[in-house]
């Protein structure tokens, strides 16, 4: 059952990444990996927000494996972040590489904290 919910969430998360990342990257139209950055930041917010909600309510654990492990796990991508950082560094694009490396970590972390906060605020208002 857990494997099934993870697989289902993973399939949806991976496809969401493909479409969201592709749409943003094409809209940006540049050599900066904005699609991956946005996917990782929004995924970080989403995971923190969902975990905040799921932990604060009596939601069944299957939701956790479906949304957190499956969906958010497949929606965000650390390997693509590393891959694109390495490509920027190999190309000597120090400026872009620094913005991407520091920006991804810092903004994702901020998004996580905002996600926790958002969940807490939502739970407090119930």
């Amino acid at each position, binding site marked *: 059952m857990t494997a099934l919910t993870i697989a289902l969430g993973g399939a949806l998360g991976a496809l969401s990444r*493909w479409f969201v*990342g*592709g749409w943003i*990257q*094409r809209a940006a*139209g540049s*050599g900066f*990996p904005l*699609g*991956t950055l946005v996917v990782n930041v929004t995924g970080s917010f989403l995971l923190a927000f969902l975990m905040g909600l799921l932990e604060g309510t009596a939601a069944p654990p299957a939701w956790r494996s479906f949304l957190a492990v499956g969906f958010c796990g497949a929606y965000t991508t650390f390997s*693509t972040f590393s*891959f*694109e950082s390495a*490509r*920027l560094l190999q*190309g000597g694009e120090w400026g872009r590489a620094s913005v991407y490396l520091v920006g991804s970590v810092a903004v994702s972390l901020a998004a996580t904290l905002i996600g926790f906060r958002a969940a807490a605020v939502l739970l407090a208002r119930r």
Partner: protein
Amino acid sequence: MEHHHFTGERTLMRIFIGERDRYGGHPLYEALLRLLRERGFAGATVIRAIAGFGAQAKLHTDKILRLSFDLPVIIEVVDTEERIQSILPDLDDMVDGGIVTLERARVIMYRPHDLPEDERWRDRIRGLDDAEGQADE
């Protein structure tokens, strides 16, 4: 050898397509390469680019994973104008989207690997100052 005296004024054809283009169940560049070989062309080279865009202004680049699935591929062919012209109807049929260019090229060397010494002299690069005086026939 069919292309023995290949040096001189020739035509360079460049076919710009996408890595993901297919023809008859195979990658298009492979299908084109096979066709060129079968028709006895002097040679062809397939080059994969690292970035580009085409008629739809869609960016392709190997730097961004999401945009790296259809990188530009260029097939370069040098042959006689007649032979190049003879293949154009096939190209028109096989290439779905892309760009084909022709330009004049001066071939100054064309020889296979491992030629015996005596034959190698005959196929020397044109225009080289040749102390032994054997280069131009």
